[in-house]
């Protein structure tokens, strides 16, 4: 059965610092992988997705993620965070009926 693990429940970084959110997945075939962001009281917004090709994918708001098959990982990165990036981030695996991780809450220190 497919599953997603996000080891960090809560991360705090300073504004302008770099960010990496971890995601490990379990899936029997080539996975479709997604990162979604959820701001308080809002629905989920897609940041980026991977399903084939280049293992480094670029997304919106300056985010990127790298698919590493050997490590079953799809970590999300951003070189310099902004206060507006404070939100909950979810990794998900597909391709259909996505399975989500438990999320990582990101707090930004001014």
């Amino acid at each position, binding site marked *: 059965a497919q599953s997603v693990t*996000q080891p960090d429940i809560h991360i705090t970084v300073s504004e302008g610092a770099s960010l990496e959110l971890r995601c490990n997945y379990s899936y029997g075939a080539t996975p479709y992988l997604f990162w*979604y962001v959820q701001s308080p009281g809002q*629905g*989920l917004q*897609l940041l980026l997705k991977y*399903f084939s090709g280049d293992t480094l994918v670029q997304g919106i708001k300056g985010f990127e993620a790298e698919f590493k098959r050997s490590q079953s990982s799809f970590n999300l990165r951003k070189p310099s965070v902004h206060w507006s990036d404070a939100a909950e981030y*979810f990794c998900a695996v597909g391709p*259909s*009926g*996505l399975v989500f991780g438990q999320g990582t809450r990101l707090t930004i220190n001014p």
Partner: protein
Amino acid sequence: EAGVAQSPRYKIIEKRQSVAFWCNPISGHATLYWYQQILGQGPKLLIQFQNNGVVDDSQLPKDRFSAERLKGVDSTLKIQPAKLEDSAVYLCASTGGGHTGELFFGEGSRLTVL
């Protein structure tokens, strides 16, 4: 392009009462999903529709939850009778053709069961 619409946004009921949530997906999207998101957790798939047929309802608690999509467009999720542990945000999502798997989510319906 209009997004996924859900109503009501908020609902408070007492346990053993019933509640219904409505979802209107993005126009033309054949696949519709209902997810349950309990506070502090990731969304959990309850049911997936393809047009008006059920593709996967393996995680739907069928003794109290039901869902329908009669004309292959709008969908309704019902809980009867509600339990305290049903307090959650119920998210509707839809996806169109192609195989990229991207889901488009509504803002959700927050249910509080007292």
